C-alpha cells in the first residue's frame, strides 16, 4: 500500500518580522510549519544568518576570523567586511566594550561606533548590547535615536530593563526589540506580554529565548524552542509567535572546545576547527529547533550554515 502523505501545516503562523530599509530588508518568520518541514508547506522565509563583529575589534579571535577582518581601519570597514561574507543576511554589532565591569566605554562613543557601522553597510543591522542591563537602557535609547530610520533590531530587552527599551527604542524611535529570557517558555511569554502591554506591536518584537553551546545544557534550549514553536503553531498563542533570533557565536567561542589550544590537548586536534565545529553544530541544532535566525562569527561556519539552509529550504 502506498504511503498517503498528509500535510501537517498549521492554521497559525509565526509572525513576519522585518528589519532593514529599502530593498535591503530581511524578513524572519511567517511560516506555518515546524522548522524545515518543507514537505508540509513551503517555508515562507528561509532562516537567516547574521555576521557578528565586536567593538573590541576582531584581533582576539582565531586566525580564520582575525585574518578575514585584518586591515579594517574602523568599524565602518569592519561592517563592510562582515557584510561581504557570502551567505550573510545581516550584520550584528556587539557592544562588548560598553560593559561597566569591563572597558566601560561611554554611551557617546558607542553611538559613534554604531553610526560608523551603519555607514559601512546597507544590510540590516542588529545591535547587541553589553552585559550591563542598566547600561543597555542608556545605550539603546541613544542608539535608537542615532540610527533612526534604519529599522534595526536591538538585542536585548530583559525583564529588568524592558520598560525603558520598549518605550524608547520600541515606541519613540520605532526600532525593533529583541526580548531575551533564560530558557523558559513561560518567562519568554511573560516578557512578550509585558512589552506588548507597553504599546509595542507584536510585529516589532523578536525573541532570544536563550542559548547554550551544544553539550552545555543544550537540551533545555531545544526543549524550550520546540515548545515555543508548538505553542505558537498548534495553540495559536500569539504571544509566542515572534520569530526567534539566536546569538550563537558569543556562546560557542567561549567554551573550552573553542579556547583550549592544541598544545594543551593535542588529541583534540586543531583549535580553530573545533571552534568552527562548535559554532556549526550549535547553529544547525538551533535552526532545527526553531530559531529563525542565528548570529555567527567565522566565515567558514557562515558558509556551512548557509549551505545547509539552502539545501533544506
Amino acid at each position, binding site marked *: 500500500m502506498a504511503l498517503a502523505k498528509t500535510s501537517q501545516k498549521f492554521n497559525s503562523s509565526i509572525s513576519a518580522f522585518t528589519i532593514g530599509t529599502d530593498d535591503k530588508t530581511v524578513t524572519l518568520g511567517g511560516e506555518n510549519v515546524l522548522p524545515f518541514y518543507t514537505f508540509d508547506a513551503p517555508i515562507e522565509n528561509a532562516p537567516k544568518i547574521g555576521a557578528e563583529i565586536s567593538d573590541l575589534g576582531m584581533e582576539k579571535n582565531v586566525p580564520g576570523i582575525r585574518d578575514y577582518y585584518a586591515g579594517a581601519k574602523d568599524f565602518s570597514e569592519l561592517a563592510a567586511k562582515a557584510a561581504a561574507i557570502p551567505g550573510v543576511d545581516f550584520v550584528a554589532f556587539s557592544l562588548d566594550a560598553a560593559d561597566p565591569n569591563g572597558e566601560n566605554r561611554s554611551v557617546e562613543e558607542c553611538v559613534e561606533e554604531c553610526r560608523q557601522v551603519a555607514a559601512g553597510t546597507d544590510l540590516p543591522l542588529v545591535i547587541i548590547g553589553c552585559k550591563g542591563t542598566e547600561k543597555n537602557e542608556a545605550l539603546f535609547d541613544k542608539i535608537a535615536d542615532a540610527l533612526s530610520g534604519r529599522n534595526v533590531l536591538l538585542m536585548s530587552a530583559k525583564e529588568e530593563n524592558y520598560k525603558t527599551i*520598549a518605550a524608547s527604542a520600541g515606541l519613540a524611535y520605532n526600532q525593533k526589540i529583541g526580548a531575551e529570557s533564560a530558557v523558559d517558555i513561560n518567562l519568554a511569554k511573560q516578557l512578550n*506580554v509585558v512589552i506588548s502591554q507597553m504599546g509595542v506591536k507584536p510585529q516589532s518584537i523578536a525573541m532570544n529565548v536563550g542559548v547554550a553551546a551544544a553539550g552545555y545544557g543544550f537540551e533545555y534550549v531545544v526543549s524550550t524552542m520546540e*515548545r515555543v514553536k508548538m505553542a505558537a503553531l498548534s495553540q495559536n498563542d500569539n504571544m509566542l509567535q515572534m520569530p526567534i533570533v539566536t546569538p550563537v557565536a558569543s556562546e560557542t567561542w567561549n567554551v573550552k572546545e573553542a579556547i583550549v589550544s592544541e598544545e594543551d590537548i593535542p588529541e583534540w586536534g586543531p583549535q580553530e576547527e573545533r571552534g568552527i565545529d562548535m559554532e556549526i553544530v550549535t547553529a544547525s541544532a538551533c535552526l532545527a529547533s526553531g530559531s529563525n535566525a542565528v548570529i555567527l562569527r567565522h566565515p567558514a561556519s557562515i558558509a556551512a550554515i548557509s549551505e545547509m539552509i539552502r539545501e533544506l529550504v
Partner: protein
Amino acid sequence: MVGLFDRVFKGSDEMYALAEKALADALATHDESTPAVFPNTAYYAACIYEYTGIKVTTLADVKAAMTPIREMMTRNYRTHDVFTSGIATSMAAEVIELCKYLDTDTPYNGEYHGHMNDAEVRELGVPLVTRDIPGFVVIIGPAPSEEEAEALIKGYQSRGIFVFLIGGIIEQAKNRNINMGFPVRIVPVGPDIWSVSHVISLVMRAAMIFGAIGPNQYDEMNKYTFERIFAFVNAFDPVDDLTIACGACAIALGFPVITNDTKDMWKVPKTLIIQEDTKDWIETSLEARDIKIKVTNIDIPVAYSSAFEGEIIRRPDMQVEIDGSRMDCFELCMTKEAHEVEDHKIEVIGPDFDEVPVGSKMCAAFIAEVAGKNMQSDFESVFERKFHTFVNCMEGIMHTGQRDLIRIRVSKNAYEAGFRIRHIGEVLYAKLKNEYSAVIDKCQVKIYTSTTELHDLRKMANEIYDKRDERLAGLTDESVDTFYTCILCQSFSPSHVCIVTPERLGLCGAVSWLDAKATNELDPNGPSQIVTKERVIDENIGSWEDVNEAVAKYSRGALERVTLYSIMEDPMTSCGCFECICGIEPFSNGVIIVNREHTGMTPLGMTFSEMASMTGGGVQTPGFMGHGKHFIASKKFMKAEGGVARIVWMPKALKETVRERLDATALELYGIENFTDMIGDEDSCGNGDPEELVNFLSETGHPALGMDPMM
C-alpha cells in the same frame, strides 16, 4: 452662584476672542503665507492637528482652523460640551502662542520655556511611559506665599514628579532661587494661562509618539491620556474663567484639577477637587491621579543586601536584643482605610536603642499599617511573613521568627554607625511599598517599645493572629470560588501544572492558596493564574471541567485531566519539588508517605529517590503522587479513596510533624483517637518488608485493612 458649565463656556469664549485678536494682529503685519510653526516638531500645532486634523504651517492654516475650533465649543449643557469646549479652549490658546513664534524661535528669550520640541517630548516621554517619572503636575499660580510655592514645588521634585509652572508662581520660584529648567524637571512654561497649550501639545505628541494615536482620534486620544499619562493640575485661588475652561480640557484628558478656590467652584469627585489646605495638595493630587511613588533608596546608616541575610550576631557583638521569647514583642501587618494612613510616617513610641544598657534585652512591636485600593486583608499574613527577610538583609541586624516570637539582634557596629529602631521602620516601609506596589498605596509604621503599652498591644495582636488562623482553618475548597495555578517549575518540568486550593497547597510546600492569590494580584501575568470551579464533574474526586481546561492550557496540551482528591484516577502531576511522595502499598490496602529528608528504605522496597524518579517530571502515575507535608492532614487528602485512613506508614520524624493535625482530622472524619500511633514507621517496619507492616497494622487495628481494595 454661577454654574460650572457657564464658567467653562464663558472662559472658552474669552479664549476664542483672544485668539481671534492675536490672529488679527498677526495678519495686520504679516501676510497669510507667513509660516506659522513651532520649532523642531513634526506634529505641527499638535492640539489643532490632533483634534481638527489640520496641519498648520502658515497663518492661512491658522485662519482655517478657527472655524472648527469654534464649532467644538458646543453649548448643549451636557458634560460632553464642557469637554469639547475645554479642548477647543486649548486649541485657541495654541493659536495665541503660535502667533508669538511667527518672527522668532525664541519669543520668551529664555525667561520662560514656551514650546517644547520633539526631542524634549521623547526625553520626558520615555521615563513617563516607564513610570520612572511617576507623573507630572501643572501648577497655575501664584501661591498665597513664596514659602508655600517653594514647599509645593520641592515636595513634588523630591517625589520625582515633573513640574510645569504657569503664571505668578514662576516669579515666586525665582525669588526663592529655585533652580529651573528641563534637566532639573521644573519647567517655567509661560506667564499667561494660554501658555498651558504647550503642555497640552506635549501630551498630544506623547500620545502620538508612544501610543500611535493618529489625528482626529478624539476618543482614542482621551482614553490614552487617561490611562497612560499621569498628569494633574494644581490651580491656586483665584481661578478665573479662562483657567476653568483650560481645566475642562485637562479633565477631558483625564487629569484631575485640585484647587483651593471655593468661590463659584463645584466639586466633582476625583476630577475637580477643592482642598483648602494647600499643604495637603501633594497627597490629595497623587491619590486623585492614582500615582504611587517608588522608594528608590532606603534611608538607613547600614548596608542593605541579600548578602547579609544569613549574618549571625553573637552575644559579645550585640548592642541590644529584641527578644520575643522573654518579653512582649510582635510584628503585625494591618490593613487600614486610606485616610487613616499617612504615607511614610515612621513613629517610635517609647525608648530607643540608646536609652537601654549595652547588651540588654528590650521589647518592641512593629506594626505596619497599609492601605490600598487592591489591598485585601488576606494578604496581611503573606506580607508579614516577609518582614523576616526584609529586616534580615540589613547589615549588622539579625532577625528570626515571626508573629510574637521574634528575635532581633542589633550589632554594636550597626549601632555605632547610627542605627536606631526607626530604621527598621524605614526598611519595612520601603520594602513593603516597593515589592507590593501593586496593592499597597500607602504605608506607615508604628514601633512601640515601652513595656506598659506592649502588654495590651500583644493581646490585641494575638487576637488578630487567632482570627487569621480561624479564617485559614475555615478556608475550605468549598468556601472559595477560585483555585490558582502555579507553573513556577515549568522551566525544568515543562508539562507540570500545580492546582493550588485552600486545602491542598503546592506540592513543594511553599505556595499556599493565599500565596498564590497574592502572587496573582501582584503579578497578573505571572505563574499563578485564576482557575474557576463552576463546572463540577465529580466533587468527591475533585474533578472540574474548569480545572481540566486550565491544566490542558497551562501544560500546553500535555495533560488533559487531573483530579484534586484522588491518587488513583488522574492524580495531580509533580514537578520534582515535592516535600513528600505517597505511594500505594498493595498488601495493606493503603499508602505509605515518605518525606524528602528520609534517606532509609520504605515498605515498598524503594527509597524516596527511587520513588521520586517515577513521580516527577509532570507525568501521571496512578498510585503515586507528590505533595506538601501540610496536605497530609487535609480532609481532602485522597478523599476519593477514603481519606487519611489509607495512610499506613510514614517515617517517625514526619509522623511527629503532622501528628497533632492528623489526629484531629482522623477524629473528625472517623472518630478514631490517636490515629498517628496506628501508622507504621521505620521502627515497626524497618526493612521494607510489607508483611511485617501488615502484622503491625493488624495489632494497632488500622482502618485501612478493612477498607475496599484500591485497585
